[in-house]
């Protein structure tokens, strides 16, 4: 494997890791709006993700940093091309991040409602926008010979990317509900599990629509038909297993399955694009690839050494932190937020 390929895989892994991890805390954030019946339940929900959401978000920052360092042209084209959606994404993440810390600091209804709204919108908008962005990248965007992306509103937002966005939101929501089932008790746990079960059907429908549209609207099946078909079949299996585990109340396993769905879904985005990193809708020749978008070999080599040395520690302490907070969150204990 060349260093360019390795870094493409690493960037993909960082994004997949981000959606797997922050996916559930986005889901929990969204569910505070309709799953929690009162302030205490909302606090329980928020406290289940309290120790983790910040580190989960760092996966996104690291993915961005890795893109910048390993594929500066990919980073430059994508971030300047998707300017406005990224502004909204950042505003949402800002409002959400401070809301966790702020909401409990003043005992006033209006105050809490404001920050609860921030948590809800801040958890709903990012997966939606990122779904729009990633499906748009697969479909192709007007990227010219200078690697500049000059996309109008409808290049970015169209039926295909909207379905992409909604699918990601739904994935995160179900993933988050199962995480809630895993970390809470009593009626909250029951309700989370039930809702997750109910949402499986619309989620399946979204997947089918997105899959069919992907077949007709992108070239990814022409390029990697076999591999993507295998992933699709795996997806169906994982999906059925998720349903089964939920009915058997095996929340951990069910959560693993929705995580696997997220991983399969986002892997197929990267697999479908490879070796391109951004598909040009103007001409194939203008697409950014892992070669024309990349840093020099020296840079990639240094970064490979640094990151492969650090990665075991990073993963180690993150896993440990999940182990420390593996107990379920009760209403009666001290709630931080």
């Amino acid at each position, binding site marked *: 494997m060349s260093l360019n390929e390795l870094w493409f895989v690493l960037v993909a892994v960082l994004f997949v890791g981000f959606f797997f991890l922050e996916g559930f805390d986005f889901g929990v954030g969204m569910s505070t709006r309709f799953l929690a019946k009162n*302030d*205490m*339940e909302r*606090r329980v929900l928020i406290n289940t993700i*309290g*120790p983790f959401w*910040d*580190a989960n*978000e760092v996966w*996104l*920052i*690291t993915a*961005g*940093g890795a*893109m*910048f*360092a390993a594929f*500066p*042209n990919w*980073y*430059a*084209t*994508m971030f*300047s*091309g998707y*300017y406005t959606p*990224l*502004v909204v994404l*950042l*505003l949402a*993440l*800002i409002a959400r991040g*401070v809301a*966790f810390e*702020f909401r*409990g*600091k*003043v*005992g006033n209804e209006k105050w809490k409602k404001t920050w609860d709204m921030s948590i809800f919108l801040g958890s709903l908008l990012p997966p939606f926008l990122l779904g729009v962005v990633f499906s748009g990248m697969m479909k192709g965007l007007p990227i010219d010979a*200078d*690697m*500049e992306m*000059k996309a109008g509103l409808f290049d970015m937002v169209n039926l295909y990317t909207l379905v992409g966005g909604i699918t990601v939101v739904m994935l995160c929501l179900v993933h988050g509900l199962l995480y809630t089932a895993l970390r809470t008790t009593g009626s909250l746990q029951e309700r989370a599990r039930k809702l997750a079960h109910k949402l499986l059907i619309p989620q399946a429908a979204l997947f089918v629509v997105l899959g069919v549209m992907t077949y007709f609207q992108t070239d990814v099946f022409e390029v990697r038909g076999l591999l993507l078909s295998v992933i699709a079949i795996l997806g169906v299996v994982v999906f059925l297993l998720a349903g089964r585990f939920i009915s058997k109340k095996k929340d951990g396993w069910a959560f693993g399955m929705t995580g696997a769905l997220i991983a399969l879904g986002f892997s197929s985005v990267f697999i479908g694009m490879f070796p391109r990193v951004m598909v040009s809708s103007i001409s194939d020749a203008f697409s950014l690839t892992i070669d024309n978008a990349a*840093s*020099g070999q*020296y*840079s990639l080599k240094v*970064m490979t050494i*640094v*990151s492969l040395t*650090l990665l075991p520690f*990073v993963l180690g*302490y*993150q896993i440990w*932190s999940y182990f*420390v*907070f593996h107990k379920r969150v009760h209403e*009666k204990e001290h*709630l*931080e937020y």
Partner: protein
Amino acid sequence: MDPIMLARLQFAVTTIFHFFFVPLSIGLALLIAIMETMYVVKGKEEYKRMAKFWGKLFLINFAVGVVTGILQEFQFGMNWSDYSRFVGDVFGAPLAVEALFAFFMESTFIGLWIFGWDRLSKRVHLLCIWLVAIGTTVSAFWILAANSFMQHPVGFEINNGRAEMNDFFALITNGQLLVEFPHTVLGAFATGAFLITGISAYKLLRKQDVKFFKKSFQIAVIIGLISSFGTALFGHQQAQYLVKTQPMKMAASEALWGKSGDPAPWTVYAHIDSDSGKNNFEIQIPYLLSFLSYSSFDGEVKGINELQAEYEQTYGPGNYIPPVRTTFWSFRIMVAAGSLMIVLGLWGIYLMKRKKLESPNKWYYRLMLWSISLPFIANTAGWVMTEFGRQPWTVFGLMQTKDSISPSVTSGQILFSVISFTTIYAALGAVMVYLFVKVIKKGPFAEDSHDEHSADPFGKEGYHVS
């Protein structure tokens, strides 16, 4: 409107705002780690309460620092895509390492620290706050490594029209970094310390929780004095490095148009007329600029006009003079604020040694409350000087600001983002100050607002609470 001006405005606003919180996080993390260490070593509950109380302020501040930091990483690609293409190979690496090495550490261990009081052993919990403190400091190292490359590019070669890294070790041992990092981090320690001394002074003035705040004051004033003094020392080193590597920035920060003469005097005040390239009125201290530049009382410093001619020879025709007035005054504001901090720190140590902290010198305590603003003023002025003084370059000698912008982004888009970020930042700033005041007023012995609120039997949600 000019997209470059808008993009620069956005960078200035978001970076300055972000940099209110970063130094405070770095400084408070260290002080809280020290307090918790005293708790673990001495076993006294008061130190634990101290770590928790100052920890509340730290967390509010940390939250704003984190969320405003994400934008910093994104906006290079969003507003400055040509810059990102040109230097991504070199500049991206420290940012990626920062995320991997520092951000993960901070964010994981801060979660463990907040939620881990009852779940972790004392020692492991203490380790968590130290790892947060180390993480924030390491993060500063990497971001300053990236910034130092912009001030003094090293470890690269130009290939295919862009900068490519060829020596990573040179990048992280950049002479600029070796003076900029200690200067900035010590300034950050001082920022945390002055917040604690200022609030403690306010509380001592009002005779509230005297024992608690006297202890806090003592710890913080020592750290505050040492770090302010260290900041000045490394500032001096940095000035000397500047004369060698960015003489134009030095000349601009002195509003020195012609030659300085030998020995060179330091200009305290100047009435600068940038248009005609001269000062109408100056107050000078003899020998001092020579000392600042070379640590000796002789030596000449090059002026703006001479350097402009040199740069035109090297880089071709163009205007290489940074905004002189801004650079000149931000330097003086920084130095003045820093010097005041040292004086106030010494005064505090004197009162402490004389055991006069409990019979308060009202003037001193009032001054200390106001002096919370000093490190923020100094930090901001320092960055303004560093970044304005480098103009018209983004990477000194390699790439100019006007060539760094994203070609595909319109003024309208940038205007939209400038307005939305400025609005949300202003709101965050206001909320943060409000929360700080609230936490401080309640003091270290108050219960959580959550509990008060939940206990209200007439509240709609009172029924669900045991």
